[in-house]
C-alpha cells in the first residue's frame, strides 16, 4: 500500500513538473523542508510571501527552546528572510521563562520583540500588549482551516489576539503492544478478573498501571512501570491535575463554571470531585517510575517515549516521541481520549451522580502574538501566517520534535501520518479520531484564563504537590488551595475575576 502511494506521488510529481503547478517544485527546490508537498496555494504561501519586500526591516522573535516550536520558528524565520529580504532575529527561551521574558518588557512599556511565543493561557495578561489579528488575516485561507476550539482558545471574547500555529490537548497514551496483546489480556484477566483494554475510567487506569508496575513486561531486561505523569511542582503540573479532575468535576448538567461557581466566584477546587481526582493522583505515586513525583514534562516524555511506562496522559509530545523513527516503541503505542469516571459530582445538588462522565480538557498550548508596540506589525503577521501556511504546517507536523500539532481541520486526515511519517494506519486512525472527537465534544473544559492566572495555578501546584508528597491529605491540600484562591480573588477583585472567567465559561457552556 505504502509502496503504491510512493510510486503514485512520484508519478504525479513528475507529471506536475510540466504542468502549470510547477511552482511547487520551484519552491521546494529552494526550501527542502517542503519537498513532500511543494508550495500549497494560499494567502501566505511561499508564492504570495515572496512578493513582499521587507528589505532593511528587522523582525525580532522570542520563541521556545530548540527544537520544540523553537526549531520551526528559526527555520521559518530563515525561509521568511530569504523570501522577503527581511532580517529576522530569533531568541530561544525555556518554556517556564517565556511568560516573564515577554511580560517584563511589556510592563516596562517596551517592545523588544515583535513576536512573542507563549502559551494560550497567557492571553488575558498579555492581550493588552498584543495587537489583535487584523481582518485580512482572519479571512485568510489558512485561518479558515483552523478548528473552532482553537479559534476560541486564541481569542478573547471574540477578538483573536494569538495567532494559531499549534494545537494542544491532553489525551491518553498507552502501550498498544501490551493492552492489545492477547497474552497479556489473558494474564491480566487471570490475575485480576478484569478485562485488559484501553481504560475508560481513571479507576481502570489506576488498576492497570498498578498491575503493570515494577516488572519487566516487555522483556528488554529493564523494569517497566505504570504511568509517567507531570508531578514536579512546576508550571505545568496543575494542568496534569486538571486533566485528572475533569472526569469527576465537569458535569455537563451544571453549567456555569468548572473552576469557580461563576455566580458567587466561590472556588470549586475543593469539592468532592476534585478531591476524588487528587486522591487518585496520590494513589498514582505508587505506580510511577522511581523519582516519578519529580517528573517534569521532559521526564514524562522521556519516560513514556523511552518505553519505560504503560501510560501517560499529557501533551502530544510523549506520543510523538514514541512514534519517532528511531524510537524503540515506534508503532507500539496508541492514543485515546482521557479516561472518564463512573460518577460525577453535581455541585448544585451537592451529590455524586452515578453516570459515566468524560470531558476533554482543551489544555493551553503554544500560542503566539504580535506586540502592539511593534513597528513592523504587518511583517509580523505575514511571518506568522507564513509559519503555518499549508506547506509549512504539513512539513512541521511530520517532524515529531518540532512540537507542531494538529489544529486545522485538514490535519485530521490519518493518511497524513501514514504517508509522511510511516505510522501504522490503525494508530493513525485512533490518533486522528481521538483528536477529532475532542473537537466535537460538548462537555469540554477550557483552561483558566483570568487575570493573575499564575497565582491561581501556582497555588494549585503548591497544594497538590503537598498532597503528593504526603505532607497533607487531599482534602486538606485542596482546602488550602481554595482558601488561597479566595484570597487571590479578593486581592484581584471579585468583579475582575468574574468578568474574565465569564469569557471562558461562555465557551465551556457552548454559547460562543
Amino acid at each position, binding site marked *: 500500500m505504502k509502496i503504491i502511494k510512493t510510486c503514485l506521488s512520484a508519478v504525479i510529481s513528475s507529471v506536475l513538473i510540466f504542468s502549470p503547478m510547477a511552482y511547487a517544485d520551484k519552491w521546494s527546490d529552494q526550501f527542502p523542508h517542503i519537498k513532500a508537498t511543494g508550495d500549497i496555494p494560499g494567502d501566505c504561501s511561499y508564492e504570495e510571501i515572496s512578493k513582499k519586500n521587507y528589505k532593511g526591516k528587522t523582525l525580532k522573535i522570542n520563541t521556545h527552546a530548540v527544537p520544540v516550536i523553537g526549531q520551526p520558528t528559526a527555520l521559518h524565520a530563515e525561509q521568511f528572510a530569504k523570501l522577503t529580504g527581511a532580517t529576522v532575529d530569533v531568541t530561544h527561551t525555556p518554556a517556564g521563562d517565556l*511568560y*516573564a521574558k515577554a511580560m517584563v518588557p511589556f510592563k516596562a512599556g517596551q517592545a523588544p520583540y515583535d513576536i512573542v511565543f507563549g502559551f494560550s493561557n497567557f492571553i488575558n495578561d498579555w492581550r493588552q500588549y498584543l495587537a489583535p489579528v487584523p481582518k485580512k488575516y482572519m479571512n485568510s485561507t489558512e485561518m479558515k482551516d483552523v478548528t473552532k476550539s482553537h479559534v476560541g482558545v486564541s481569542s478573547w471574547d471574540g477578538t483573536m489576539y494569538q495567532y494559531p500555529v499549534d494545537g494542544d490537548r491532553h489525551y491518553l497514551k498507552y502501550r498498544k503492544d501490551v493492552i492489545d496483546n492477547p497474552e497479556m489480556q489473558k494474564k491480566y484477566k487471570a490475575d485480576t478478573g478484569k478485562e485488559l483494554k484501553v481504560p475508560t475510567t481513571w479507576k481502570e487506569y489506576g488498576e492497570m498501571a498498578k498491575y503493570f508496575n515494577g516488572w519487566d513486561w516487555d522483556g528488554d531486561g529493564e523494569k517497566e512501570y505504570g504511568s509517567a505523569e507531570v508531578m514536579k511542582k512546576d508550571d505545568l503540573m496543575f494542568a496534569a491535575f486538571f486533566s485528572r479532575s475533569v472526569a469527576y468535576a465537569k458535569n455537563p448538567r451544571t453549567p456555569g463554571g468548572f473552576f469557580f461557581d461563576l455566580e458567587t466566584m466561590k472556588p470549586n477546587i475543593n469539592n468532592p470531585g476534585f478531591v476524588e481526582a487528587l486522591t487518585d493522583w496520590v494513589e498514582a505515586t505508587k505506580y510511577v*517510575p*522511581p523519582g516519578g513525583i*519529580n517528573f517534569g514534562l521532559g521526564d514524562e516524555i522521556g519516560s513514556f517515549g523511552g518505553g519505560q511506562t504503560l501510560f501517560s496522559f499529557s501533551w502530544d509530545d510523549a506520543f510523538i516521541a514514541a512514534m519517532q523513527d528511531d524510537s524503540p516503541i515506534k508503532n507500539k503505542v496508541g492514543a485515546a481520549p482521557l479516561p472518564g469516571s463512573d460518577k460525577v459530582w453535581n455541585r448544585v445538588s451537592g451529590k455524586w451522580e452515578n453516570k459515566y462522565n468524560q470531558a476533554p480538557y482543551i489544555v493551553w498550548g503554544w500560542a503566539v502574538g504580535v506586540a502592539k508596540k511593534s513597528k513592523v506589525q504587518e511583517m509580523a503577521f505575514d511571518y506568522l501566517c507564513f509559519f503555518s501556511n499549508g506547506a509549512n504546517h504539513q512539513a512541521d507536523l511530520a517532524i515529531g520534535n518540532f512540537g507542531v500539532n494538529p489544529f486545522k481541520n485538514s490535519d485530521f486526515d490519518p493518511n497524513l501520518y501514514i504517508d509522511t511519517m510511516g505510522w501504522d494506519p490503525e494508530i493513525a486512525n485512533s490518533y486522528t479520531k481521538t483528536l477529532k472527537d475532542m473537537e466535537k465534544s460538548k462537555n469540554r473544559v477550557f483552561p483558566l484564563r483570568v487575570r493573575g492566572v*499564575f*497565582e491561581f495555578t501556582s497555588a494549585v501546584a503548591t497544594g497538590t504537590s503537598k498532597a503528593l*508528597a504526603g505532607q497533607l491529605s487531599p482534602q486538606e491540600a485542596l482546602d488550602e488551595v481554595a482558601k488561597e484562591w479566595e484570597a487571590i480573588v479578593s486581592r484581584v477583585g471579585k468583579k475582575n475575576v468574574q468578568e474574565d472567567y465569564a469569557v471562558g465559561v461562555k465557551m465551556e457552556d457552548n454559547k460562543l
Partner: protein
Amino acid sequence: MNFKQKYVFLFPGLFVLIGILIFPIIFVVRLSLSGWNSYNGLNFIGLENYIRLFTDDPRFWQSFFRLSFLSVTTVVLQYVIGFALAHMVWKDIKFQRFFRVLFLIPMMTTPVIMTVIWRTFFHESLGPVNDILSNFGMSPKWLTDPTLAKITVIIVEVWQWTPFMFLLLLAGLLSLPKEPFLAAAIDGASPIRKFIYVTFPLMAPISIGAIIIRLIEASKIMDTVYVLTSGGPGTSTETSSFYIFIKGLREFQMGYAASMSFTYLIIMIISLTFIAKGLTKLLLKD
C-alpha cells in the same frame, strides 16, 4: 594616613556602585508599596504587602527558616571540608598541583547547567547513583523524599561551593607566618595541638570573612533548588529566594515580591551583623 586624595581612591568605585544602584534600590522600595502585578501598574497601596507578609504568609517564613537551615548547614560543611582539604594539600603531598586545581574546578561550573547534570546523576530510575546502589538493594529517593531532597540540595551545594572555601583557606594557610610554627615545633607540639593552638587561631580572621561571604551567597540558593526539585516535593526544599522567584517572575506579583525582598534584605543585614559579631567573639577570643 589621612590625605584628601583618599576620596579620589574611594569615590569612583563607591559612586559607580551607588550610581547604578540608587535607582533600582529606590524602585524596589517603591515597588514594595505597590500592587504591581500582571494586571496592576505601579499603584500605591501603602503597607498592604508588608501586612500580608507579616500576618498572612506562613509560607514565606517557613521558606526563610528552611533557607537558614540549608545555608547554615551547607556553609558549615563547606567550611569544615574546605579547611580539611586546604590543610591536606597545604604541604607535603604528592600531585599537589593536580589536587589543588582539581578541587577548584566545581566552583567554575554554571549552577543552572551543572545542576541539570546533578539531576540526571540523582535521577531515581535513569541515573547512575541509584543504578549502582540498586546492586546493594538500595534505591534512595534522592529528589522525591522530603528529607532526602534537602540532603541532595546540600550535597550539590557542597560540591559546587566547597572550592570557594578551599581556595580562600588555602591562600590563607599559605600566607601564614612561619615563626609560630617553628615555636610550636620546638615545643614539640603534636599535630593536633599545633592545629588547635597555632593554625586555627591564625586562620580565624580569614575564616570569618569566608564564612560571612559564603553565607551571603548561600542564602541566594536558587538555581540548585529550581533545577533539582522546583522546591518540591511539596514545599520541602523551597527557600526564600526561590519563593520570591515564584511570586515575582512566575506569578508576577512584583510588588509583593519586592516587599519580601526588602524584608529579606533587612533580616539578612541584621542577622549577618550578629553572626559576624558572634563569630568574631567565638574565633578571636583575645
